[in-house]
């Protein structure tokens, strides 16, 4: 199975950087997400996860998003629901969400995702995600 690597863009309708590793099971979504074609973009990520999960290996998902718009939030939720489903079916899942600790809006978004998905999400402060 191939890794999924997408180089994000910044200042140009921001696309997050994707780095999904099929060997280690470490998946990272980084940057800002407010794309023109949100559904198409996230469908690719979800399809990769389906294929990876079919192998039954452990997965670590790291979110390092400093901003995402509401149409992205729906797709991010699909990722979280997929992780939860995998875990419920016996898969080994760790989900880490890195955020700027001054960004209380983001902290609340993570809390809301946790409530909706029932997935354990480790919220980890990270000052490198601060906007400057």
């Amino acid at each position, binding site marked *: 199975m191939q890794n999924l690597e997408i180089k994000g863009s910044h*200042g140009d309708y921001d696309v997050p950087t994707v780095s999904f590793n099929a060997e280690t099971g470490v998946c990272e979504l980084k940057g800002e997400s407010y794309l023109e074609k*949100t559904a198409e973009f996230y469908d690719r990520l979800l399809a990769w996860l389906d294929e990876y999960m079919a192998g039954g290996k452990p997965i670590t998902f790291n979110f390092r998003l400093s901003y995402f718009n*509401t149409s992205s939030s*729906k797709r991010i939720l699909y990722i979280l629901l997929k992780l939860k489903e995998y875990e419920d079916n016996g898969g080994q899942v760790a989900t880490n969400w890195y955020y700027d600790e001054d960004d209380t809006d983001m902290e609340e978004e993570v809390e809301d995702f946790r409530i909706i998905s029932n997935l354990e999400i480790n919220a980890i402060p990270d000052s490198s995600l601060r906007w400057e």
Partner: protein
Amino acid sequence: MEQNNKFNLVEYHFRSQHEVVVSYKGPFDKDAMNMIGNYIRGLISMNPQASKKVFKVFIELAQNIAQYSAEKNIIGEYVGAGVGSLVIVDYPEYYQVVTGNLIDNEDLGPVIDKCELINTLDKEGLRKLKREQLKQNDYERTGADIGLIQLAITSDNPLDIEVKPIDQKCSFFTIRVKINK
């Protein structure tokens, strides 16, 4: 008369007083959004929390116009992004992001109802409503409703809306979002 057709740029420039930091009318396509978005990012060093909120509010409002405005930028046979107006005003106590666009009268009712519901809710109520909307697994919806709820959450203020009827088909829909400094 010929003379009357001259657009008075000086008047336009100074009519919008110094507190107007951005004004734009046109298609909300990728280029316009990048330009305005980057300009707002430039303000961030002065007041990081408020400016980030202004940016978030701008993105949601602009993407709404791009997708849902009843007026489209038509180039030949190509139907481009939605057209609308945007003004960002810098008042001493708060920023105000104001957008307006044409909306089909038949779509107006649900949008007004939604905004009125949003304005009755406090922060926790808004978050609960947003969670419910997110949970609805309708894959095709783009989430404009969540967008409105998010505007109220991000800005921590009610949504100030105004409707000006244009004709039997359309109205002009204005929304003002206030962000405290």
